[in-house]
């Protein structure tokens, strides 16, 4: 009997209810215990980075929406900040504050979807619908500012696609109210739920050292107790002017990550409230002729504006030769855009540092030696979006 293998190889995915899309994990099981877990990627490869090389800088923005489709605004923001850094554009203060507000809204959006799907993976099906119910208010807000519910492309190079609507303030405050009421529901259902704690505590544990060695970021890294948040460590878009806390975990398990994300939702609401209270007046786009699109009103009445508009739309703008890297803290972690510019009107190479992809590398470490059911919990607690993993 010695040549009989004691383990079973189980293929999980790419079509599987809880691999969040088309992730495939090849598991080696010894009974219910995972001996080896190997993520297999590439089932959603869409060539987004390559596509961006063939587009004008303006027209590459919609590609970023489609990577992490649950956090369109923060992806837009990351790419636009990178281009603005390359072109050395100063951004009006109002734009920066609106961007912060929307980036935080997006963080809540991303966390809500994570919360719903993660709970669903653990069998708490109602949570999914509660989270999506409240996410609906965020979708409405997206629609109000950008005209789209998911692929907003609202944040543009040098500013915003259009001015914020008149009832922006009212709308965001309504969202905050909805989410605050929703949080009570979520916490009642999960935070002190014996079964939920049993399922998540001590599952997918990563020590601080392991997390750093795997170059993780976002709630996964902070769950292991490493205080690293780009909004604090390397502020962009005037984050330094906002007062908020970065929640940290102790044990580095799935339960800590849950607590951190819930706390981040609360902190995001705090930032949004501050942004609304102190929202400065001003233009919604920087005035940089030839690079940033002039406001639509001017195009109708001013000759130069119309010419610039025409030139930018048809042939874009020429960049200096060089390379920039700009990273921001999205809901899932550090999303960075590296742009190598060769002086033409299209990027020579765009490379994205996707948080989902790099965080996914922690999966084998989180699963091996644990139970089979914990694989689902571990995948959930990483919070991946396959569009971003494969790009």
């Amino acid at each position, binding site marked *: 009997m010695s040549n009989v293998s004691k383990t079973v190889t189980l293929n999980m995915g790419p079509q599987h209810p809880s691999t969040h899309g088309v992730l495939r994990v090849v598991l080696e099981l010894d009974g219910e215990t995972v001996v080896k877990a190997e993520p297999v990627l590439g089932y959603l490869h869409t060539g987004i980075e390559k596509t961006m090389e063939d587009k004008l800088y303006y027209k590459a923005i919609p590609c970023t929406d489609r990577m992490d489709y649950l956090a369109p605004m923060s992806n837009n923001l990351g790419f636009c900040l990178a281009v603005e850094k390359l072109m050395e554009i100063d951004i009006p203060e109002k734009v920066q504050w609106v961007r912060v507000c929307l980036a935080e809204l997006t963080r809540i959006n991303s966390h809500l979807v994570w919360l719903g799907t993660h709970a669903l993976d653990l069998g708490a099906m109602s949570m999914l619908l509660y989270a999506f119910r409240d996410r609906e208010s965020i979708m409405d807000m997206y629609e109000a500012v950008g005209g789209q519910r998911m692929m907003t492309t609202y944040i543009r190079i040098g500013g915003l696609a259009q001015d914020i609507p008149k009832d922006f303030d009212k709308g965001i405050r309504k969202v905050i109210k909805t989410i605050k009421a929703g949080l009570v529901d979520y916490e009642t259902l999960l935070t002190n739920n014996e079964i939920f704690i*049993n399922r998540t505590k001590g599952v997918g544990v990563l020590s601080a050292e392991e997390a750093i060695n795997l170059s993780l970021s976002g709630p996964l890294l902070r769950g292991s107790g490493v205080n690293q948040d780009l909004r604090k460590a390397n502020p962009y878009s005037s984050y330094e002017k906002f007062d908020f806390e970065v929640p940290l975990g102790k044990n580095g398990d799935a339960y800590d990550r849950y607590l951190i994300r819930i706390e981040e939702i609360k902190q995001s609401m705090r930032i949004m409230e501050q942004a609304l209270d102190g929202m400065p007046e001003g233009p919604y786009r920087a005035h940089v002729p030839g690079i940033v699109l002039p406001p639509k009103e001017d195009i109708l009445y001013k000759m130069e504006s119309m010419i610039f508009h025409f030139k930018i739309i048809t042939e874009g703008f020429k960049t200096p030769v060089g390379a920039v890297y700009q990273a921001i803290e999205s809901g899932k972690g550090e999303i960075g855009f590296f742009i190598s510019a060769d002086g033409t009107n299209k990027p020579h190479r765009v490379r994205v540092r996707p948080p989902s992809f790099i965080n996914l590398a922690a999966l084998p470490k989180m699963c091996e030696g644990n139970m089979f059911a914990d694989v689902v919990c571990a995948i959930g607690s990483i919070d991946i979006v396959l569009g971003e993993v494969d790009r």
Partner: protein
Amino acid sequence: MLEMILFASIKVVVVVAAVLTGCAYSTLLERKVVGHMQHRMGPNTAGPYGLLTPLADGLKLIFKEEIKPANIEPITYMLAPMISFVPAILTFAVIPFGKDNTFFGHDFTLVLSDLNVGVLFVFAVTSLGIYGIVLAGWSSGSKYSIMGAVRSSAQMISYEVGYGLSIVGVLIIANTLSLRELVELQMLPLWGTVSFLPNWFIFSQPLGFILFLTCAIAETNRAPFDMPEAESELVAGYHTEYSSMKFSMFFIAEYANMIAVSAVGATIFLGGWHGPFLDTMPMLSVLYFVLKVFCFMFFYIWLRATFPRFRYDQLMAFGWKVLFPLALLNTIVTAFFVIL
């Protein structure tokens, strides 16, 4: 003699039809209740309030193409759904669902067969259902299925112990194994003294009732103990490779099992068909019985909408380390008091 056979046949047909309809409509009930708990409507397109949904579901499943994987064991694969389906229905053979009355001058008992060891029969038959699940998992030739089946057998065997022990307390007090006599005992005043409350065993055996309820959920593989089919891990567990009507057989079996344990629970702990005004209108008893079963069903659905799922090892630990000792304790304490 002929009359007896005729009566019995009619009763059998009516009961089976009622149970099957009950199964069909519990799917609708579940979807509606869970829907409203989750801020959605639930099914509402087929018929008024979606009342024809079960019919539409059934028709759809019958006409679905049947997909058979290549490496199945054909005979067992075919038999498995039936094996899990039949015991689920069999339970109803001994459950009294109404007060005896006369019908066109004949005595008419509202129970299919008044076995004097009804309780034993129920527990024996419920345990048989596991064969269907194990065989289904084994014959499907899929790793997900076999894992579901293995989990399921371990779970059901473990919880069988707690399930059985939880009612031993009642049996010690009642001193009978006949479900009919159990109901009659529960019609007396509580503890023979409190006249305004009936002697339902839930009052004398509260712990036994809670244990029974918990174990019954595990017995029927319902959330939060729905380990065998834990969809987030095992896709659909033992019935992953089943399609069309065979799949729906498992589905009906699950719901029939739910109704069965609800009926057993109602009979043993909630006084069966007992309720007020039975002297004037004996047929009310059937309504009371259905209502009590409904309460159990609602409780199951409610749990499913609320709780996450246990992990396999936690489930086993819970069964053996919490439920089993408690059930044992309950039995011993009850026995002690009865001897006193």
